[in-house]
């Protein structure tokens, strides 16, 4: 009855403060009754003592009456729980071995889960630190002739398109663009290269970010001739300006410009796509970029107008796009616009990784729970007499169950406390294991720490685990019948249900850890496949770096070409340098330009022509990289003149895609960005390389001589005879000798580049993590199996003794015990294989060069498992063979 329950609860709560008063009232009331009755008895002529006794007799059980009334306003359960906790504590302290193993197991499980959850929270659950982040959309475009429609691969827009979109679309409050940048910063000490970013002036207002100090960019500051201003990130402000608030209005030297500091971004500001940027400046669009619709280079973000959905915005942009296509068929004729939420854009690549890790670590916790449950059940079995005696003495069954639960809760809370320590250590190690370059593009991982959400998760996990492993022993107690437990001889076989439950737990542990081990096996195999993938060139002993030629000293292409000749000549003479060449991008890192072209004799509508990557290279490029020539020839000295014949070299993918495997030598193509472009003859075909990452298929590419497409930012690749890192210092000196104002930008060995690349990281990281989870799981499962078999041997000592006495050979006993253990292991392995077969497909996107159902991995893991399981059973089985029948029989 609800009202009674409500009244009672209310009374109980009120009573917390006035319990002494209520107790006194109850005493008074009863005392009054007794006094009245006594008086009446005395009036009836009974003598004084007898009157009192009679009154009491008539009243009945005094204490019981009081107790029953008092129960109405107290929380008997709460008080019992306190008693349980105290008792449980004593029990746990008395069994330090059991307690510490249980707590350690739980702490590992809970700690690992908390650590991974803090990453999941930081990346997937925490809202992006912008106002109304759900309104933020990214816009890009793609041409089917060039790239895949995967939205995450396409995020650049031409400047004129951006301007038109901003004017014509109605679905957005604002659209903003940005681009990466780098500056030579001359601070207090020597020149250094710092990463920066450029953005349209409405960029921060679109995100909803206001500067911590100073002001936002003002309209008009983003024209090419506009004032040069800069916004500092909080970290840069702290390290370079010591957090000085008077920094506003000061100027600093970026490249050759004096730039005024107008603001400092908030401490929590992050923008993953430009995560490494330390300085933000307004976008200064080069003059020709403002008119070239085909020059797609700028990522665009937009804030949806109030109430507009992404699909409405998509159809709005499709309308805008159709108009622009009709107006500019050559540039925009085959363009599609893709909209992706900023959140998906930022976390799209790590989401599946995190979810797989979270799943894996969840399995570890389940195994830990099963293990502790098993320990508790074994212990509960040895405490059956204790419980039976207490039941016989009148303890209600509920009290015993609640006591067992209190014990398990204490274990899980202690495990959680220790787990929190593990988690903090784990988070530290996990963040430290992320390469710096990747960490700057996933800045939210820096936010992975024990925040309230993570602590709440920890708390819930602790309670759930406590229930999970506490429930089975508690249920077991509740099924015991007092008489049985007391009558039973202490060492005879346990009830069948109980044994079945324990077996089931061990089988579950085995199958869970098998799933983990298969997952780890697949990850390791992917990593190996990736690292052994032939990138198409010899990645050993290569050093890459950049040189930026400032426009004041190197205003025109011939200046850059002259520099390149001189520097290459000097560098090639450095001892230990076998060769040096340049390319417009560093191989394996992706990016770079693409170009549209027509094959000679091809007639195609304007705007529908083919497109492929274009790389401007110096002559030694293929030999330095050791990229094989398939047919034709490399560039010769005549090609290497700016006014020489126009020749190109293509790769095998190019031939396959655009010439369908026919011999392309002697065929001619023409770039379509200008009518004045001449036809260029294909003079050579080279092998494909993994240009945009080890896990990406090669793309069609064509190469033209650097002298015919010079650039002010040059990327060099040098082949060294020894460790490439040792060549950095001498190359720096060489560069300084050629031009003292130039800086060697980001020197990095190709091996480091591969190691820190996203494609490798996305396999190596989960390989190590799932690998260690799987190792832990395997260990726990084997401890579980070992414990189970040992316990069963101990329980069956007498039976085994009888068997031996009746003539069973040690071999028979061994087979008996091993058979029992390996039967469980086989069941677990079978279930685990089926589960793994179903689950590993969820990690398909993380795999490389291996199928989620890779038979070799499955068979290998299963074999390993059975072997380890046999060892775990063998030790107790050996012990069983040494049972002395006399001792065993006399034992009872």
């Amino acid at each position, binding site marked *: *009855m609800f*009202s*009674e329950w409500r*009244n*009672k609860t209310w*009374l109980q709560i009120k009573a917390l403060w006035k319990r002494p008063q209520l107790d006194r*009232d*109850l005493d*008074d*009331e*009863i005392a*009054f*009754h007794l*006094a*009245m*009755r006594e*008086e009446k008895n005395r009036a009836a002529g009974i003598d004084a003592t007898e009157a009192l006794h009679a009154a009491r007799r*008539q*009243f*009945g*059980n*005094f204490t*019981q*009456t009081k107790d*029953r*009334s008092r129960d*109405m306003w107290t929380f008997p359960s709460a008080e019992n729980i306190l008693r349980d906790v105290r008792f449980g504590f004593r029990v746990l302290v008395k069994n330090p071995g059991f307690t510490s193993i249980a707590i350690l197991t739980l702490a590992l499980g809970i700690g690992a889960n908390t650590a991974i959850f803090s990453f999941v929270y930081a990346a997937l659950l925490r809202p992006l630190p912008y106002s109304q982040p759900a309104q933020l959309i990214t816009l890009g475009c793609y041409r089917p002739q060039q790239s895949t429609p995967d939205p995450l691969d396409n995020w650049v827009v031409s400047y004129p398109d951006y301007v038109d979109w901003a004017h014509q679309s109605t679905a957005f409050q604002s659209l903003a663009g940005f681009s990466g940048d780098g500056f030579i910063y001359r601070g207090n000490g020597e020149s250094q290269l710092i990463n920066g970013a450029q953005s349209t002036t409405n960029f921060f207002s679109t995100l909803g970010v206001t500067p911590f100090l100073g002001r936002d960019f003002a309209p008009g500051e983003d024209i090419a001739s506009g004032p040069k201003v800069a916004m500092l990130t909080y970290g840069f402000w702290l390290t370079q300006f010591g957090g000085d608030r008077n920094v506003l209005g000061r100027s600093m030297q970026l490249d050759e410009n004096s730039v005024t500091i107008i603001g400092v971004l908030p401490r929590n500001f992050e923008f993953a796509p430009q995560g490494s940027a330390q300085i933000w400046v307004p976008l200064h669009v080069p003059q020709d970029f403002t008119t070239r619709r085909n020059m797609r280079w700028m990522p665009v973000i937009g804030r949806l107008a109030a109430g507009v959905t992404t699909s409405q915005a998509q159809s709005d942009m499709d309308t805008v796009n159709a108009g622009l296509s009709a107006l500019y068929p050559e540039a925009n004729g085959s363009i599609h616009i893709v909209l992706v939420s900023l959140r998906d854009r930022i976390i799209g690549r790590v989401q599946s990784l995190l979810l797989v890790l979270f799943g894996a670590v969840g399995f570890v916790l389940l195994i830990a729970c099963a293990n502790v449950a098993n320990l508790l059940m074994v212990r509960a079995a040895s405490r059956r007499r204790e419980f039976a005696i207490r039941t016989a003495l009148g303890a209600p069954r509920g009290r015993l169950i609640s006591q067992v639960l209190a014990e398990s809760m204490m274990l899980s809370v202690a495990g959680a406390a220790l787990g929190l320590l593990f988690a903090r250590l784990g988070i530290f190690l996990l963040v430290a294991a992320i390469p710096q370059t990747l960490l700057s593009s996933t800045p939210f991982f820096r936010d992975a720490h024990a925040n309230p959400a993570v602590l709440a998760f920890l708390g819930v996990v602790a309670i759930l685990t406590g229930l999970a492993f506490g429930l089975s022993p508690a249920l077991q107690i509740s099924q015991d019948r007092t008489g049985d437990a007391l009558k039973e001889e202490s060492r005879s076989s346990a009830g069948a249900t109980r044994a079945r439950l324990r077996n089931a737990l061990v089988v579950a542990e085995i199958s869970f850890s098998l799933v983990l081990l298969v997952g780890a096996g697949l990850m390791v195999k992917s990593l190996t496949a990736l690292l052994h993938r032939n990138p198409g060139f010899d990645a050993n002993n290569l050093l890459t770096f950049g040189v930026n030629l400032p426009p004041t000293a190197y205003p025109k292409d011939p200046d850059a070409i002259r520099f390149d000749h001189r520097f290459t000549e000097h560098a090639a003479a450095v001892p230990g340098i076998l060769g040096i060449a340049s390319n417009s991008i560093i191989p394996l890192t992706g990016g770079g330009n693409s170009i549209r072209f027509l094959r000679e004799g091809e007639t195609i509508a304007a705007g529908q022509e083919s497109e492929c990557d274009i790389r401007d290279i110096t002559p030694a490029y293929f030999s330095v990289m050791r990229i094989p020539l398939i047919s034709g020839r490399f560039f010769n000295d005549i090609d290497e003149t700016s006014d020489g014949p126009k020749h190109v070299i293509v790769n095998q993918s190019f031939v396959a895609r655009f010439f369908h495997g026919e011999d392309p030598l002697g065929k001619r193509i023409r770039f379509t960005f200008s009518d004045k472009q001449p036809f260029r003859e294909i003079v050579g075909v080279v092998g494909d390389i993994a240009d945009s990452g080890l896990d990406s298929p090669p793309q069609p590419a064509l190469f033209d001589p650097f002298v015919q497409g010079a650039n002010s930012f040059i990327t060099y690749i040098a082949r060294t005879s020894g460790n490439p890192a040792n060549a950095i210092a001498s190359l720096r000196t060489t560069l300084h000798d050629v031009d003292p104002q130039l800086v060697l930008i980001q020197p990095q060995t190709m091996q480091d580049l591969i190691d820190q690349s996203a494609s490798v990281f996305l396999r190596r990281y989960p390989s190590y993590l799932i690998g260690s989870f799987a190792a832990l799981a395997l260990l726990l499962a084997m401890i579980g199996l070992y414990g189970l078999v040992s316990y069963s041997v101990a329980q069956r000592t007498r039976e085994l003794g009888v068997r031996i006495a009746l003539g069973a050979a040690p071999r028979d006993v061994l087979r008996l015990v091993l058979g029992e253990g390996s039967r469980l292991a086989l069941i677990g392995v079978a279930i685990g294989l089926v589960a793994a077969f179903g689950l590993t497909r969820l990690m398909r996107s993380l795999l490389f060069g291996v199928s989620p159902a890779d038979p070799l991995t499955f068979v290998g893991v299963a074999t390993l498992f059975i072997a380890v399981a046999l060892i775990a059973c063998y030790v107790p089985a050996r012990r069983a063979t040494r049972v002395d029948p006399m001792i065993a029989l006399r034992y009872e």
Partner: protein
Amino acid sequence: MKQNRENPGDLLQGTLDLLILKALARGAMHGYAVAEWIHQTSEDVLKVEEGALYPALHRLELRGLLDAEWGTSENNRRAKFYSLTAAGRKQLTQETEFWRRMSGAVARILQTA
């Protein structure tokens, strides 16, 4: 309206509750007076184990059928006086009606024998 029969004494719990309500229908009284009234009115046929009276009184109070107030007894002692609430009065009417029908039915069955 089921209650745990915590004290299988001489009286069924429901009956004890009904008697308490009936007693208090005459006005506020303390526990002792309720016990006395039940003894006297039933001419000592119904023997209330007096201890059982108090948990019953407290439970009825909790259910909102009774109000309780500390006051002074006829011989100037501090005593807790119970009185019927509106809900208690309604309950008394319903229970009385139910009891009448029950006892009537039982009586008819016994007569047929």
